[in-house]
């Protein structure tokens, strides 16, 4: 009984001395055993499971997955096709134009796909040239016609001897000369 009070006062004294030390709380001063040293994990197994808080990478991974998918969806067939053409058809080699031979317009290109596009899809460069010259000639003639029109207007207005700029008058045969003493000039 007395010993208990002595112990209690000793606990209170120890707690007052160093109150922050974990072993010195009043509650476990009386009931504490000699504390074992911390059980350090010597062999690092799976590690302590931590709940790491980071932002969601779901949208990023989804975007990158979809990007790769849609690029490769047509990218792989296109690359395979171009490899096939380069291996099995091959590029053309440069040669001198033989005497008396007029090469077709697609024979001026090297790669087989360019030749194909030039032969089947595009018009020949000569035809494009002629189309451009035809358009230029049409516009040139339109311009010349407009200038000529203006000149003709000017001349006819000035001279008055053309079909334009005439004012219509009444037919001569319809004039009733009977009440008139002198003829109209």
């Amino acid at each position, binding site marked *: 009984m007395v010993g208990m009070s002595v112990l209690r006062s000793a606990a209170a004294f120890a707690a007052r001395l160093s109150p922050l030390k974990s072993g010195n709380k009043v509650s476990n001063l009386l009931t504490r055993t000699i504390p074992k040293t911390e059980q350090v994990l010597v062999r690092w197994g799976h590690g302590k499971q931590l709940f790491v808080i980071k932002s969601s990478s779901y949208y990023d991974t989804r975007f990158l997955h979809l990007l790769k998918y849609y690029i490769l969806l047509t990218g792989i067939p296109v690359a395979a096709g171009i490899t096939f053409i380069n291996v099995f058809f*091959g590029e*053309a*080699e*440069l040669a001198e*134009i033989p005497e008396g031979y007029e*090469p077709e317009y697609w024979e001026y290109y090297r790669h087989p796909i360019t030749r194909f596009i030039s032969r089947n899809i595009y018009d020949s460069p000569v035809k494009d040239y002629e189309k451009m010259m035809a358009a230029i000639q049409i516009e040139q003639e339109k311009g010349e016609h407009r200038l000529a029109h203006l000149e003709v207007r000017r001349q006819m207005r000035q001279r008055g001897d053309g079909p334009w700029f005439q004012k219509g008058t009444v037919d001569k045969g319809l004039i009733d000369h009977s009440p008139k003493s002198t003829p109209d000039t």
Partner: protein
Amino acid sequence: MPDDFDKDVYPVPPRRTPADNKQTSLPSPAVIASKLFYYSVDLPVTKFRECIDSIQSGHKSVYYHQRFRRVPDLTECEEGDYVCYYEAEMQWRRDYKVDQEIVRILQERMRACTQREGDSYHQNCSKELQNYNDATKAFLSRYGDLGAYASGRKCLMKQKERMMDAQKA
């Protein structure tokens, strides 16, 4: 195989490998390195090329350089004949491209010569240097400063200015 470069235009300098003076029976590291390169790079590449050539050998196609007829120049066109202007303009553009390629080829030859000769290029490459300088001066006097929207008309006006300056001086 694609053609090797023209040996006259780009002469290969004489080899300066020293005479073999082996004093050991061990293989020299240069031989080891060259054999390594041969078996790891040269041989597979050559075999691949031969394989593809054998696949393509049946149906080889050729391409040609196009030759264009000469058409009347801008100075020989009637005024207001826009079709003639167009043909002259197209011819001027083709000539412009050809001149650019000429200067580029001369520049490449000069650079190859400089690389070959090293520090003594002032003496040994004088012909290539002279050719390139002349070509560049001529090109710049004709086509320089015309800008991105260069045209045959602007080039003709530049020539007129040049002739006026030459007459004044």
